[in-house]
Each structure stands twice: as C-alpha cells, then as structure tokens.
C-alpha cells in the first residue's frame, strides 16, 4: 500500500514491505502457426497485501494476458517462456495442474470482464457461488447455502434467498457482477484479479461495483490487480498504476506520478488522449443558439408493446452544433436516435427534420431525407454486409439514390465520390479494395463515417461512435469529427453514456432517464450547475474526476 509507494515511488520492483505477489521478468508467448510469438516481455512488478495495482493500456497491450498468467489460465496456445511468478512462498510458474486448482478460487481469484456471459445461463446463481465453497471447503450443503447468503449480503443484496434461486437472465448486468464478486471472495482470497470488471456497465453501476471492490479489499486486506483500459477508473481506484504497451510494462507509478509527470512517451500520449484533457476549442454556445433549428422534437412518445421507451421528450438541435443525449442503458436515447433517422415510427408527438415533418412518415416516405441525415453506429462492423469490401460499403448509400445500372459502369462513375469520402474520413484511397475484416476498430469506424459522408449529409446521428474504441483511437475519431464539423458545417446528434466525452465535444446536452429528458441546456450549465438530482448522480459517478477536473 502506501508503504510501498513511499519507500520506492514508481519503482518497477515495488521494493520495500512484505510482498504478496512478485512477478519477475515474466515472458509469455503464444503459439501461432507452430511458431512462438512473444506477447509479454520481461514484466516485473510486485504487490503488497491490500494494495491495488492497475494495469492500463490499449487492446493488445498484454494487460489481460498478465492477469491470466497470474491465474495460470493462459489460453491453450499460450505459455510462460521465461521469468517467474511468486505468490507468498509458492513459485506459481512451477505449479502442477493440481496445485493450480487448489490455489485458484481459494488464494487467488478472478472477477471477469463481461458479467453477462460469465455465469452459466442454466444454473441458479447461488449454486454458482457455492462452487467455490464446494471446491475448497468441507462445509456441508446447508452451511454452504448459509455462507452464500452471507456473501450475498456482503455484496449488497437484500432478498438473499430469492437471489440464490434466480437464474442469470433474471438479473441485471450490475447484479450479475455482484454475484461474480461474491463468488470471487467466497474463498477469502489474498489476491483478486479484476479483469475489466466494469467495462460493460453504466456509469452509476460501475461506481457501485468499484466501491464494493474497494470496500472489500479494505476490510480483508485483499490485494487487487485491476486490469482496465479506463484511465479514469485507474486514477480513482489504484494505489499504483502500471502502463503497458506492446507487451511491456513501460512505467509504474502512483496516479499522481503517472498523470502529472508521465515519464515514458507512451504514457504521455495515453494521458493526453483523455477526452477533456485534449485541447478543445472553446465553443460559442450563444452563437449556436441564434442559428435556425434543423431538428425540432415536440413531446415525442415511442412505446413498444405498452411500455414507453421514450415518454414525452422535446428538444431542438441547431445548425452546425453538437447536441448530445446522455443516459444509461434503457434510458431511451438510442430509441430517440432511431426515430430521428426514420428507422422507427414515433407513437405520438411531432418530429421535424430540416423543416419536414417526419412523424407520420414510413420508411419509403422518409427516403428522400436520407441524403441529408445519416447515422453512425457504435459497432460499425456488424452494420457492414460481410460480402462487401470497403468500396461497396461506402457506395451502399449512394446506390439507394441512383437508378439501377450495370455494376461496373456504376462503380466507375461513383469511384471519385467514394475516394473523396474515404479521404474525408482520413483513410487512403487504397483502402477501397480492402475488406472490413482486415481493418482495426478505429479504421472500421472511419469507414462507417465515410459511408455516412458519401451522400454529403447535413446531419450526422452518432450512436455511441467511440465506446468500443481504445482511448487514443477514440481521441483520433473525435478529432476527425471535430474537423469535419468545422469544414462542412455538419450538425451532430451525439448519443453517449460517456459524460467526459460529451462534456468535451458538445454545445448542448440533454440528460435522459427512463424515457424522459430530466435536464437539458448548454453543456457548461448542465455540467457545472446540474439542477436535477439524477444529473448530479451521473456526474458523481464519472470515473477519474480528479483526472479531468470536472
């Protein structure tokens, strides 16, 4: 804990004090096509009891592999090729399968990444927590059940017997993660590997789960290796942060050291990419407000089978501005976006886009408007036809407005516009011939943007466009959007659950909860003087508040 920090600040070896876990020169390689590909290079760090060390880095940096190596759960093709891991007086890297089994769950346990797929859908959740007890204790069935009840109380469940008997599909994501935490602490471990424990959860739920982990480790002096891509989470929760890049631990230090005086160039780049740290041009909100509205929504309702997904929202979006809608899952923000782009009909209320009332338009009636309003999704890959190459993907919206003609003639005629759209999205023209499957997440999102731009729309609806991306890639995409808006005068409707991003890029913001807008206004007003309790709660839940100085 603090002792370690004070005695050797930022030391890679974390010397001083007692050590729970010592990782020395760990090398891990994956066997790919009969050849060993080194993945981790000389990783060395240590953890004291009760300490939280966060491993941060982008996807592919090796942070999850490090976590799995400590648990002895590398994938079948992975192997430790050098170095050693010592836990108390046991050398883990020399352990037999049987030795591993007795250690896992009892001394070292895991809180997994995605709670929605980490529980067996066919078994009651209580039984799944009980597993740890049946494997590592001599308790009889009744004692185990009582123990599970206690664990459920510890993780904050009230009706414990009901919870015990429920199946995973009857629980929300946050509740599932509580179950998994209960299962991880059932064996009273000394060390917990938390592998992106909150990445799929809403901000307020994320805060509850992280608070719970914090609380548990304080109570039991459990050490935690927190694997995360979210620098905010690391800043809030860790005693020390290890920054990983390409399988190397490039820098270790306290949050203050990492964020205020990063040493390694990669750390500097990573820290610089945090949304509200990047240079944001000051926006003249007042000027925006004087422009004419391009989208006017009045008392919009949309219900699915009796339940209201959107229950009476009203807002205006002005030309050239970025209007953000924030909220947690199920708040109705994506449904609102779907109504705006004509993918679903409003139940009642009125919606007008560019002066045209679209409330009663079916898909065919909406079609002419698609030249002017386009949507970009969170996960572009699933919205691409798998047989299409990039050229076809970008061409698709154009084709909808062109008379049918021979494919080669059409492709020749469209070539210039597609290359222009790709260039606008900062992709080289040569990408046209590649297949989306070969591209990285950021490149795919650029292709999706190019596809939206090809018809030269006036409005872009961006539905969580950067949530699936690494922080530095996300920053690049935001920069791209920023430039496009400046050059082309685009209007953005930005749908997001990430308040830090919203704060950085929006002019106006609407906060949604249970299908209603609980607060809206200029971004500075909403963020610095939130009037609704829900907004205050959301703001309080932002990870890394000390980081972004909200």
């Amino acid at each position, binding site marked *: 804990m603090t002792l370690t920090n004070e005695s050797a600040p930022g030391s890679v070896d974390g010397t001083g004090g007692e050590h729970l876990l010592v990782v020395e020169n760990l090398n891990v390689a994956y066997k790919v096509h009969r050849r060993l590909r080194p993945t981790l290079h000389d990783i060395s760090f240590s953890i004291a009891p009760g300490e939280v060390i966060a491993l941060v880095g982008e996807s592919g940096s090796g942070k999850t592999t490090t976590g799995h190596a400590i648990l002895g759960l590398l994938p079948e093709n992975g192997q430790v090729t050098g170095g050693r891991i010592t836990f108390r007086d046991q050398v883990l890297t020399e352990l037999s399968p049987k030795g591993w089994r007795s250690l896992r769950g009892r001394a070292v346990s895991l809180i997994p990444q995605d709670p929605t797929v980490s529980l067996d859908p*066919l078994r009651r959740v209580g039984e799944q927590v009980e597993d740890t007890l049946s494997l590592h204790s001599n308790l009889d069935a009744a004692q185990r059940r009582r123990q599970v009840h206690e664990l459920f109380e510890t993780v904050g469940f009230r009706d414990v017997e009901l919870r015990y008997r429920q199946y995973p599909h009857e629980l929300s994501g946050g509740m599932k993660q509580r179950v998994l935490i209960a299962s991880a602490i059932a064996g009273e471990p000394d060390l917990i590997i938390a592998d992106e424990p909150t990445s799929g959860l809403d901000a307020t739920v994320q805060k509850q789960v992280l608070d719970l982990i914090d609380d548990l480790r304080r109570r039991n002096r459990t050490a935690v290796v927190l694997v995360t891509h979210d620098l905010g989470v690391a800043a809030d929760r860790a005693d020390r942060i290890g920054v990983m890049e390409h399988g190397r631990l490039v820098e270790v230090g306290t949050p203050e050291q990492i964020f205020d005086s990063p040493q390694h160039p990669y750390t500097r780049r990573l820290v610089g990419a945090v949304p509200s740290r990047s240079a944001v041009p000051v926006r003249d909100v007042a000027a925006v407000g004087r422009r004419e509205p391009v989208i006017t929504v009045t008392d919009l309702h949309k219900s699915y089978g009796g339940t209201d997904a959107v229950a009476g929202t009203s807002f205006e979006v002005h030309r050239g501005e970025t209007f953000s809608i924030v909220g947690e899952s199920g708040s109705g923000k994506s449904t609102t976006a779907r109504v705006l782009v004509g993918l679903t009909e409003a139940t009642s209320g009125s919606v007008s886009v560019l002066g045209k009332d679209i409330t009663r338009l079916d898909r065919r009636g909406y079609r002419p408007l698609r030249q002017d309003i386009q949507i970009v999704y969170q996960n572009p890959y699933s919205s691409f036809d798998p047989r299409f190459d990039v050229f076809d993907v970008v061409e698709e919206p154009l084709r909808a407005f062109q008379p049918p003609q021979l494919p080669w003639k059409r492709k020749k005629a469209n070539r210039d516009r597609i290359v222009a759209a790709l260039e606008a999205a900062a992709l080289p023209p040569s990408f046209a011939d590649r297949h989306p499957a070969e591209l990285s997440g950021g490149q795919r999102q650029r292709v999706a943007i190019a596809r939206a731009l090809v018809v030269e729309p006036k409005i872009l609806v961006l539905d969580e466009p950067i949530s699936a991306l690494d922080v530095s890639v996300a920053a690049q995409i935001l920069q791209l959007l920023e430039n496009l808006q400046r050059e082309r005068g685009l209007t953005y409707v930005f749908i997001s659950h990430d308040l830090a991003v919203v704060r950085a890029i929006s002019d106006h913001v609407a906060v949604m909860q249970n299908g209603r807008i609980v607060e809206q206004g200029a971004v500075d007003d909403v963020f610095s003087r939130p009037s609704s309790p829900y907004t205050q709660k959301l703001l309080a839940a932002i990870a890394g508040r000390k980081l972004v100085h909200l």
Partner: protein
Amino acid sequence: MRRYILKRLAQAIAVLWAAYTLSFILLSVLPGDAIRNRINAPDSLMTPQQAQTLLEYYGSNRPLIEQYVRDLWGLFTGDLGYSITNGGRVWGLLTLNLPATAKLAGLGLVIGLVFAVIVALLINYAKFGWLKDVFSFLPALSTSVPIFVIGIIVLNVFAFDLHWIPPVDNHTFTALIAPAATVGLVVSGPLAQVLSNSIRLTRSQPFVHVMHAKGAGEGYIFRKDILRNSLLPILTLLGLTIGELLAGAVVTESVYARAGLGQLIVTSVNTQDLPVVQGIVLLTTAIYVTVNFITDIVYPFIDPRIALDEKTTRAARTRRLAAAEGLGGDLVEAADLFEKRAPVEVARS
C-alpha cells in the same frame, strides 16, 4: 402452458391432415390401380359380379374427391380401412409390424446416442492431438456412407464370415443387434457432430473460464456446466433423428430381411396398396409430431430462459438458436445431411 399445448395439438392435427392428403394425391397420380391389377391378374378366379362388388366396395370407380372425403371420414371414425392385397385390417397390420420396428429404432437410438457421446467426448477431451483428428473424422464418415452399404458390410462380416449373428431374423435379441447398430451408426453421425461442436463451443464460453478460475477441474466443470449446455442443441436434433431412424428402418429391414413397418411399406408401395401406405404415413407422422412436441415441452425444464406461455413461444424458438449460439450452422448442416440421404421420404412425410 395449457394454451400452448392446445395450440400445439391443433398444429399436430393439421400436420397429420397435410401428410395424409399429400400422400393420397401422390399415390393417386401414380399409374396403375391395385384393384384392377388384382381383378385382371391371370390367376384371378373372380366372376364379373365379384369384380363389380370389389370395385363398389373400394369405390375406385368413383371420382377421386369422393374417395378422398370418404377415406378422411373413415379416418375420423377410427377406421383405416382394409388392405387391398391381403384383405386384412390396416390397423391390425400396423400393430402387428410396429413392435419389431420400434425395437429396432429404439435400440438403434440408444446405440447411436452412446456412440455419439463417446465420439464427442474423445474429440474434445482426448489427450493426443492425432487422436482428436482421427475421431473428428468419424461423424462425417458415418454420415456419408449410405445405410445399405453399412448394412451389407456388417451382414457379410458378422453373419457370413464370423457367424456371430444370424443372417435372418429369428426373433432373438442377437438378431436385433446388428441391424440396430447399423441404424445407430448412421444416426450417430449428425448427433456426434453437433454434440462435439456444442461441447467445444460451451468450453470456450467465458463462464467456463470463470469456473477454471474458481479452481474447478475438467470433470467438475463437465458435470456442472458443459453437459447441460451442450445438450440443448442435441434435443432439437433428436426430433429430426426420430424421422431418420424410421427412414433408416426401411432400408435396414430390407437388407436384414426383417419384418416390420419398413418391409410393410416397401411391399405396399410396390403393390400400390393405398390404405396400408396411408396408414403407415399417418402412424409415422404421428410419432414424429409427438416426439417433437415432447422435446418442446422438455426444453424449458433444461433451459430456464424459455417459458412456455403464449407470448414467449415464438421468441422461444429464436432463443433456442441463440442458446445454441453459433450452432445454427451445424444444425442446418446436420439437417442437410438428413435431407441428402433420406432414402424413403414417405416415412418422414
């Protein structure tokens, strides 16, 4: 739940009716007529009066639609009619031949399942890589070899060369083993393929990773998680397998010269004995529909995500595919295998 069952019952009746009608039309358009064949046979000793009575009785001189309505009415009153070739009651013929085929299909299913489970386990859990490869090859092999080839090989080796089993049916259990193993081997192909893929997919699920992290060994995880999760797609496939078993029985019974529904349908189709063929079609359709109905009822007991009320039944089917996650392709593949080889479609209607 009650509404669901009633709805399924109505569906089952509709399927039975469709199968009946379809086979009626198919057999009517075939050239020739069993009754006239019998009258005009050289060894027939019938007087013209007798011939007339026979024609009147079967009504084969009446318009087709009238025959159809009459037969259908008979069906509702529980009367399947009489065989044209041997004059016995159709119902009697069916009950006489059903037990033999049921034994064959039943034992065939057991052998097929056991074989499929063993192969699937070996594919997934064998220690040596080459062993896995060998076993991965088996399901495809057993599905691609036609059933009569397997039957003839087994017969030649075990009956004629080794004399382990009798070459014809002498109503002993030993005589049943070879034909049942033949049918079983054939149906085990798709079962093994789907089961081994579903075990593989289940093992790669994150929740299995979590189980490992709890310190559980392979055996524990298999018992607690893998078994039930991998059974889901098998259950769906089982409904199709019943049809396959009955179709396989037709060929197997011919190869092994066993009495049974298979033999009965072969002779009845050859002699255009319409009432008997209709009876068999109805019986097999009823079995098929019943088995699929039972699998649908059993599903929610294995998978708590599926509830059998009227609102969710449609979603249940989609859910089921989602539960199999990625197994859709394998199911289609398995269904394709069935389609390609089904020797007598009548048995599956």
